[in-house]
């Protein structure tokens, strides 16, 4: 109540007084002079002056007084005529009568505050607002945070007045307060403090991190809102949390920080992006949340955590509905740093460190491998490949995995300038990341520059621009295109082969020890990687985001804001394939034979340019008003247009004159070009209404209408309404006796969101690979309502290429919006004097009309290779439910401060409906994943192994009742005949687990003592299984010759040896398909993501060298991973992938933050 009164007075001041400008200057002067006042009140009473001055200016008089006393004057020469000539003669007089006399005829009032004397025109001085100040005493002090760091910009107000100030850059403040006044200290993210002055003139304040951060403001769709007034589900990650991490992208930085958000780093190589899922998977199409960076859609993987002020994640329908059409996967709002008037800040952050693998699982050495390979051959009645003499001579052989590993190195430098004058604010940030991976020839470099500018052109118009330029290059050398990470290739490469000496034409490497044809041919991983890492331009990518906005203050509380933005992406991928000759063991000189080569005439070059652009045009009208100091109303109306145009251009040429001439135009043969392009558009109108009564009863409604070009005209428009309510129980009078509850709010929301990003990827395995790495992969369903002619159906006549044209897809003009209905119930509670904050939420998300490939009978002629063809239709239904909670506890004892935060999320995902008549279908040619009604999305599937045949009797006994898959022998797996039809066959494949975690957790603890601080972050996903084709190859005849992890040493070797793992046999008997259960693994894990120790060097030392703030720190990222998974990296998406992935690195780094 009192607060709103203050605001009212304040507002009155701003708009009514014609002499506002003058008064503001005066106030400024007052503040400045108070700044320099010393304690003590009686100087003016004790000091007497004697003067005799004739015909001098007033100015000279005042100077004389200043020279002869400790008094000094403050006045504005525009208001006070100091050039008037006067004569003054005094004898041991007090200052008061001297001044009265001096200005007797001049209507100038004087105000004496200790040694300070303020001169002002009488009409101003009489203003009642100034009177209290005159009678006040000055109070000074310093405001620090719980770590003892000075807090800049803390708002300090004398309670019940408009008098206030803010702390300066050192946290110091000074203000005049009546002796019985109360000072209110408030700061974003801190608990607001009210401190009675009680006659003191020095008050130092420690602000505590906000329990709920009562004053905290969060960014919501097209606006901001006080956190305490939220009725929807919004999670925040603050600047502080972002910076104290050893990560390279914002996507990584939110991992394990907030409830309901799963982040998967699907590739450990430098620069690889992360996958984010908010509240499970709600669609069969694109599950990526919408990421809005300063109002423009952007790439969260590209942005450095250093650049960010806050990340807010909109999870439920009510908070996200304002983004209607594209919000079904949740919305991530990223706000970058911007400048503030009057606070020039220069900050430099750096860190650098080394990285190494977190853990490398054991694998076979040459001797073990050759023995086991022989054993597999003998079991299959084949001749052993290696002789005993050879095996004895092999010893350990070559450790190819270690041969492709190296120590990584990472450095990150970030320089920020921000500040502003009264009418112009700026923030400039430059960020450089250079990372070398733990696998040879893998690296990433990124250069980001961001400039945010804002200017108050007039009192009613603010304009601004946000600009971001990013350039990056990434490199790694997966084997055979993108399918097999180098480290996996190294694992599988034969350890009996020696490393090559010299380069491509060198000697070494007795490939003759290779157990298989393809290994005989294959280059070893080191040579392969080195060879392929040259001759390419490392895929430079450029992103340019620029937006312009203008904000009109039409009237009190009424704003109109228009934003025009664009996001440009350009990339160029150039790869040259030089000629080479690769000899076997003996080498060229030793008479060895060529195992592989590319002839000079077959040199070729491919070059692809990507050129994408996205435009956004947004108009917002916002009205905020408070009625009767109790009813708060905010209304938002908006319009948004978006258009996307993606193009790429590819050129190929063959036959280059040399390996060094790598220009496209020099390839003289088989020149070929191609272009692809698509575009789509979205138009939206939306509105939102927020109302609360005394902050106690909260209501919000929003509605958005969207039209997408992806649908035919009839189904183009979708309407997405939502509503939410909140009740702050703690404000009710009946709660006033409950001491232990500081704040208690319950809230509920319901709303409808839309989806249209179908077909961004397909579950078809080759599509997966393509989409993960190839930016040219376009949404398949983009033109679903158009029947098109595919011009790729060509055929040669008389040995000449003829372009053909065919309908290869089935248009569905009936396709329409996906609909997600989300119910959310939440509770926010702060208890025990702000020391414990509890948030809990439960949600149900039902998504209907899900756009799925509807299988078409092959009789339509629309087929997909050997599989059925499909078109997209609104046929699916999925349900996600979840319970999320966060506990945050603060403890402080003297200089020791501690807080701990735990977030937990239970998730349950279930497919409710698929295409009519279909209960389940497999997603990949290997039957490893299926969509099945009642099971989670992409359920991991396979046979159920119930043991291993130990004896022939056991085999015979089972064969009496069960028709087996072939000639089984002791040592082979016993597959469960799950459907009981007496035959072990593909119909016995069952769901083995969920590829989505059922529980996600994160734990963050911070502690500090004086200048020292420490933090630790633990994060994990539980209840998840994944299918990996890397492990389990020993049981897959096709790949038995590939080396693998040493789990195979525990194979079945005779009756009673084990019931878990089959014998080794070079045949297909223990493999019914790629969905073999030995390839399905528990992928639950917990990782110690981060440990950091920092020390802030006290300002009294650093200020001598002009440094405001200096913190040094050391940290370890990915210290440890706890999991049962056998493989390089457990953290993969649950989707089908051929192989294991490049592991994430453990990085030990040191750094500093310097602020000038």
């Amino acid at each position: 109540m009192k607060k709103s009164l203050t605001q009212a007075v304040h507002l009155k001041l701003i708009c009514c007084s014609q002499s506002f400008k003058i008064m503001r200057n005066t106030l400024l002067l007052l503040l400045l002079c108070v700044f320099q006042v010393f304690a003590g009140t009686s100087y003016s009473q004790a000091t007497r002056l004697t003067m005799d001055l004739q015909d001098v200016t007033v100015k000279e008089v005042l100077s004389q007084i200043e020279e002869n006393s400790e008094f000094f004057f403050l006045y504005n020469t525009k208001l006070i005529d100091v050039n008037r000539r006067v004569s003054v003669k005094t004898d041991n007089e007090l200052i008061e009568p001297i001044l009265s006399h001096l200005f007797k005829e001049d209507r100038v009032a004087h105000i004496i505050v200790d040694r300070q004397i303020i001169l002002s025109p009488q009409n101003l001085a009489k203003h009642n607002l100034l009177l209290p100040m005159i009678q006040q005493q000055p109070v000074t002090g310093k405001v620090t945070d719980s770590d003892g760091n000075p807090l800049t910009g803390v708002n300090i107000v004398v309670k019940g007045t408009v008098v206030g100030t803010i702390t300066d850059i050192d946290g110091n403040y000074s203000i005049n307060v009546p002796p019985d006044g109360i000072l209110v200290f408030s700061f974003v993210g801190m608990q607001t403090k009210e401190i009675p002055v009680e006659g003191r003139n020095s008050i130092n304040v420690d602000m505590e991190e906000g329990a709920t951060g009562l004053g905290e403001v969060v960014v919501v769709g097209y606006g901001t809102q006080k956190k305490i007034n939220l009725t929807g589900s919004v999670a925040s990650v603050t600047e502080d949390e972002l910076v104290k991490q050893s990560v390279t992208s914002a996507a990584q930085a939110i991992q394990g920080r907030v409830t309901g958000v799963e982040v998967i780093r699907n590739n450990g190589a430098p620069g690889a992006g992360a996958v984010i899922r908010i509240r499970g998977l709600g669609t069969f199409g694109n599950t990526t949340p919408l990421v809005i960076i300063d109002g423009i859609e952007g790439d969260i993987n590209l942005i450095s955590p250093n650049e960010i002020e806050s990340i807010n994640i909109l999870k439920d329908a009510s908070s996200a509905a304002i983004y209607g059409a594209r919000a079904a996967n949740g919305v991530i709002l990223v706000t970058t740093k911007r400048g503030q008037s009057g606070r020039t800040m220069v900050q430099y952050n750096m860190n650098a460190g080394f990285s190494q693998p977190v853990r490398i699982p054991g694998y076979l050495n040459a001797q073990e491998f050759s023995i086991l390979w022989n054993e597999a051959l003998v079991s299959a009645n084949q001749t052993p490949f290696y002789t005993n003499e050879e095996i004895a001579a092999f010893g350990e052989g070559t450790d190819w995995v270690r041969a492709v590993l190296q120590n990584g190195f990472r450095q990150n430098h970030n320089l920020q300038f921000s500040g502003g004058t009264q009418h112009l604010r700026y923030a400039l940030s430059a960020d450089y990341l250079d990372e070398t991976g733990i696998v040879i020839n893998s690296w990433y470099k990124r250069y980001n520059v961001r400039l945010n500018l804002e200017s108050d052109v007039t009192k009613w118009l603010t304009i601004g621009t946000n600009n971001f330029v990013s350039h990056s290059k990434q490199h790694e050398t997966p084997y055979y295109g993108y399918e097999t990470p180098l480290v996996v290739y190294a694992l599988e490469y034969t350890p009996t082969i020696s490393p090559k000496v010299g380069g491509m034409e060198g000697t070494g490497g007795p490939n003759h020890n290779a157990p298989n044809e393809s290994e005989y041919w294959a280059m070893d991983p080191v040579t392969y990687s080195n060879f392929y890492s040259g001759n390419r331009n490392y895929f430079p990518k450029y992103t340019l985001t620029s937006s312009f906005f203008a904000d009109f203050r039409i009237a009190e509380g009424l704003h109109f804001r228009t934003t025009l933005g664009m996001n440009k992406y350009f990339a160029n991928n150039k790869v040259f394939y030089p000629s080479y000759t690769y000899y076997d063991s003996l080498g060229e000189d030793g008479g060895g034979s060529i195992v592989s080569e590319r002839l000079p005439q077959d040199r070729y070059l491919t070059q692809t340019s990507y050129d994408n652009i996205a435009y956004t045009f947004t108009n917002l009208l916002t009205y905020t008003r408070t009625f009767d100091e109790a009813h708060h109303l905010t209304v938002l109306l908006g319009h948004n247009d978006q258009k996307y145009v993606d193009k790429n251009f590819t050129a190929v040429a063959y036959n280059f004159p040399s390996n060094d001439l790598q220009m496209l135009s020099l390839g003289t043969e088989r020149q070929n070009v191609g272009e692809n392009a698509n575009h789509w558009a979205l138009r939206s109108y939306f509105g939102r209404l927020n109302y609360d009564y005394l902050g106690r009863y909260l209501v919000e409604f929003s509605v958005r209408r969207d039209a997408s070009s992806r649908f035919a005209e009839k189904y183009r428009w979708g309407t997405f309404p939502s509503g939410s309510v909140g009740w702050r129980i703690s404000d009710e009078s009946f709660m006033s006796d409950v001491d232990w509850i500081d704040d208690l709010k319950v809230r509920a929301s319901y709303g409808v969101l839309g989806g249209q990003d179908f077909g961004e990827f397909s579950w078809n395995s080759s599509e997966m690979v393509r989409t993960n790495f190839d930016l040219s992969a376009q949404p398949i369903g983009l033109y679903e309502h158009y029947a098109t002619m595919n011009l790729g159906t060509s055929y040669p006549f008389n040995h000449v290429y003829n372009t053909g044209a065919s309908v290869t897809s089935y248009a569905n003009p009936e396709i329409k919006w996906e609909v997600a209905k989300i119910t959310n119930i939440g509770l926010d509670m702060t208890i025990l004097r702000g020391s414990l904050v509890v948030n809990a939420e439960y949600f149900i998300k039902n998504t209907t009309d899900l756009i799925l490939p509807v299988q078409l009978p092959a009789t339509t002629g629309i087929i997909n290779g050997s599989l059925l063809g499909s078109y997209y239709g609104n046929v699916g239904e999925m349900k996600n439910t979840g319970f999320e909670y966060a506990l945050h506890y603060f403890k402080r004892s003297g200089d020791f401060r501690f807080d701990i935060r735990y977030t937990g999320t239970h998730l349950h995902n279930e497919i409710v409906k698929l295409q009519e008549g279909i209960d389940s279908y497999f997603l990949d040619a290997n039957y490893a994943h299926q969509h099945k009604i009642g099971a989670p999305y992409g359920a991991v599937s396979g046979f159920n192994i119930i043991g291993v045949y130990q004896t022939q009797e056991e085999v015979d006994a089972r064969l009496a009742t069960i028709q087996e898959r072939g000639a089984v022998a002791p040592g082979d797996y016993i597959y469960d005949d799950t459907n009981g039809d007496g035959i072990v066959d593909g119909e016995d494949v069952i769901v083995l687990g969920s590829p989505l975690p059922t529980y996600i957790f994160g734990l963050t603890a911070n502690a500090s003592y004086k200048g020292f601080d420490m933090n630790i972050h633990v994060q994990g996903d539980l209840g998840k299984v994944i299918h990996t084709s890397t492990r389990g190859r020993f049981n897959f005849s096709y790949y038995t010759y590939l080396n693998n992890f040493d789990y195979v040493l525990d194979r079945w070797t005779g009756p009673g040896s084990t019931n878990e793992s089959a014998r080794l046999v070079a045949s297909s008997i223990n493999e019914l398909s790629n969905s073999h259960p030995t390839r399905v693994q528990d992928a639950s894990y917990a990782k110690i993501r981060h440990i950091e120790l920092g020390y802030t060097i006290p300002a009294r030392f650093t200020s001598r060298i002009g440094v405001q703030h200096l913190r040094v720190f050391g940290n370890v990222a990915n210290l440890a991973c706890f999991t049962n998974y056998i493989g390089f990296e457990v953290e993969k998406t649950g989707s089908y992938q051929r192989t294991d992935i490049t592991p994430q690195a453990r990085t030990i780094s040191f750094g500093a933050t310097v602020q000038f």
Partner: protein
Amino acid sequence: MKTRYLIIISIFLVSLISCNKDFLECPPLAEPASATFFTDEASAIMAVTGVYNALHTFPLLHEWEDALTDNERWYLDGATALYGALAHGLETPIGNNSYTRRAWNHGYLIIQRANSAIENIEPMETVSDNLKNRLIAECKFLRGWAYHFLIWRFGDVPLLLNPTSEQELYPSRSPKAEVVQQIYKDLAEAAQYLPATWTGSDIGRVTKGAALGFLAKEYLFNEEWANAAAAAKQVMDIPEYGLYENYLELWAPGVNNTKEGLFEIQYWTPNGEFRSTLYYRWLRGDAANTGASGYGWSMVLQDLVNAFENADGTPFDPTGIDLHNDNNQYENRDPRLKISIFCDGMDYFGQPYQRSWSPTDYAWRKYTIGKYDPLLISNRNAPLNWKMLRYAEVLLIYAEAENEADGPVTEVHDAVNRVRSRVGMPDLPAGLSKDEMRERIYNERRVELCSEGTRLEDLIRWRKLKEVMERKHLNQGVNYVIANFDEFRYLWPIHQQEIDVNPNLEQNPGY
């Protein structure tokens, strides 16, 4: 103040006006819409080219099918080949056996592309009648061929002659007899408008000989002997067709679209845009490695080797010969043996072929023009067309039909002897009975057309598949035993996925 409102209102209005309705119209940029595509002759021709392209979608189809007979074994112990999978108990809707599904899909891909082209081209006014008739004839040939392919594997199949509309999304099966009539009709109509040969940039298109030849084949399969003989005779009477003189050369690179090749699937271009998969049957040739990486996926069985007569025209008798070790067995045989099959000791591109290279002792020589070579493989461009119908087969169709219709008359002898004499084999002995002649023709088809994917259909129509499959394991290198080949297996199962999607389709009995 007023100015400010004016600015704001005008911005708002401008924003609304500038956002015209077309903003949301985003037709495909990279592909033309089908509704506006058919405008001129070039577009009609492209649509027909698209039908031919469907022949490429499943190249392995043709190469695999000998593996389903007593001619050949597939590299994976038969696990992925239809009847081998059967022996492994894997013949399930989701098992590895995608072969039947591919065959079904492939057939309908050709049919529907043809239907679409016919439907769109027929009403075009910008295309001359001559060209229109010819283009539609090409489509009808391909459609007829595809239906032939389907009915001889699946029996009754949905007969679809128009592109699928929403109403016909889930067709039911039409009686095989009805489909057969449509095949006759399509092929006869095709023959009417197609020329005997093509020149220049049209070489490789369907010819009259192809249409009539397949018409003869379809009559033969349906035991309409007189019609079959008559149709085959029509082909034999066209002077542009005949036997290519050198049987060995027929499989050499560059010997494409000869007077013998009545219809060939075209692959080879200098730039290698198209991908014949014939190299899958080639061996690397210096190590005992076949299979996934060494290639040599199709491995020839002893049973086929035994089918080649002695050079004097008498049947080869394997009794008492150690077939797995003896190299004398390859001497003094029908010359087509060593032209078609690599036997131990033969020259394999500079090295002696060793039977240890293949689990079955043998590899195909037909269509093998070099060693497995990774560079060649990466180009995926074996310079070879796949011969779908040769003049030699038309002669044998004629002989078989005529023998059934009129007995072993001179014309029957002449036709078979023309095939034999090209490779230097003596004429068939005089005085063969009708039954004896039938057996000789059956064997002649087997050896003359081995590896060309014809034997499976022959065994099905002769109802000999059962006895052949039950004996297959007696061959060197065959690791599975089919103890009882049930009669119902003469028809393949429709893939379960197709049945699941289309409620109107009934599965073949037994599956």
